[in-house]
């Protein structure tokens, strides 16, 4: 005990107020918790009471389309690289117009943790999170969604964006046909 007091003195000096503060600090929380016990709980009683999530709520993932109705996803693998639980897999391919797209695209929702890193990584705004959260099942295979299940007929957030119109490699527009580009250089001419 004597040493306890010594320690106390070393720590707080001779100020008796400190002891008072400590005692108060020990007892006061009991009052706080007791007071809270008589307040109304803030819990939503979920299945009976439903809450409308905010538009940026992160739940079921979709693949969106550009304004022309083309698939936005270019299968760049950035979402699968960003995914911390490795629930996204795909195979990229090239169509006859030179457009890169996902030959297949799969999200295993039974693994997904809805962290939103895929949507954040997506450079073409293809992969987006929706607020649809009532999403569960008993068969893991039914939670494995393929591209057909994921694609929606809408642009989602930032509806107007079309990656290929900005890419600068002449897939949607002819080469050099974007508004921020000069036409292709004629390398056989030295004329300015």
């Amino acid at each position, binding site marked *: 005990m004597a040493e306890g007091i010594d320690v106390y003195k070393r720590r707080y000096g001779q100020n008796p107020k400190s002891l008072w503060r400590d005692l108060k600090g020990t007892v006061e929380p009991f009052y706080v918790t007791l007071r809270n016990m008589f307040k109304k709980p*803030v819990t939503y009683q979920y299945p009976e009471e439903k809450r409308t999530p905010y538009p940026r709520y992160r739940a079921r993932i979709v693949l969106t389309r550009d304004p022309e109705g083309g698939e936005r996803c270019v299968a760049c693998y950035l979402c699968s690289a960003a995914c911390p639980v490795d629930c996204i897999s795909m195979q990229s391919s090239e169509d006859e117009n030179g457009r890169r797209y996902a030959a297949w695209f799969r999200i295993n929702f039974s693994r997904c943790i809805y962290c939103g890193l895929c949507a954040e990584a997506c450079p073409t705004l293809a992969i987006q999170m929706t607020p649809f959260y009532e999403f569960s099942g008993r068969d893991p295979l039914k939670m494995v969604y393929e591209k057909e299940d994921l694609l929606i007929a809408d642009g989602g957030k930032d509806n107007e964006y079309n990656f290929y119109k900005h890419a600068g490699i002449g897939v949607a527009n002819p080469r050099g046909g974007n508004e921020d580009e000069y036409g292709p250089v004629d390398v056989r001419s030295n004329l300015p």
Partner: protein
Amino acid sequence: MSDFAIDILLILVKLGLIFAVLLTGAAYLVLAERRVLGRIQRRYGPNRVGPFGMMQPLADAVKLLTKEDFIPAQADKPIFFVAPGLAAVTALLAFAVVPFSPPITLFGREVPMVVCDLNIGVLYFLGLSSLAVYGIALGGWASNSKYALLGGIRGLAQLISYELAMGLSLVPVVLMAGSFSLTDIVLAQNPVPFALLNPVAFLVFLISTAAESKRIPFDIPEAENELVAGFHTEYSGMRFGLFFVGEYINMMILGSMITVFFLGGWIGPVLPPIVWFFAKVMAVAFVFIWMRGTLPRLRYDQLMHFGWKFLIPVSLINVIVTGALLLWLKG
């Protein structure tokens, strides 16, 4: 039917009653704790199983019973099996000496409302609470897991440390009552309970029992965020359930002990003595739950520091002061 047989029968009936009351009490104490903690945190707590979640303990029991009984590969199996039982049984045994009502007259026989009114009840209680250490120490050791072992060692150190303070804080009680029998101790508190007569011993005992029951803020052996689940990390199913139930039975035992030693046992006006007794036990249990909802966990060194450098000296001084006072009073 001989008297002896009737005595045996009575003891068995009492035992059965106590067993049932204790186990259901422990189960509902879990529910109560979860509800109270919920309210402290402004949520409801379990309210889905049955009205007000009353069936929750049953659901928990079913769940625990049906869960896979998992044994780690390198575990020391016999000890691993025994440890949870040890924890629960030592807790249960302590109740043998608790008197929860004055003796009643039944069919002309005076029946003491205690399983066994030992004249050394206090020592019996202290001995059993020392044995409780084995449950967690062996459980932690036998799991062959670093978390469990660490939890077990911590539990060992903590329980042994606080036992001293607990024992010392009971010395003034024995001095004041002049008996080791719990019934005598209760009777000695009429009309003033020892909590008022000797508040220092009461507080030391309260804190020590909280530490003995390994509850927040003294849940160092479990400490989820350091040791996963401490000594019972590797336990699952009903074995875990035994540890779990043991803890809550322990809580009730300690509540009863506080009632017996300091709160005047069954003594109280108007209401029948047994109601008083249970009301007091429940009040103590509520305090424990309240404490859990309020205080954060101590650090290991703080815990040891507090036990050895504060509680033990304080209770020693209290023994001397109380002894001196009694000598002077009776003097």
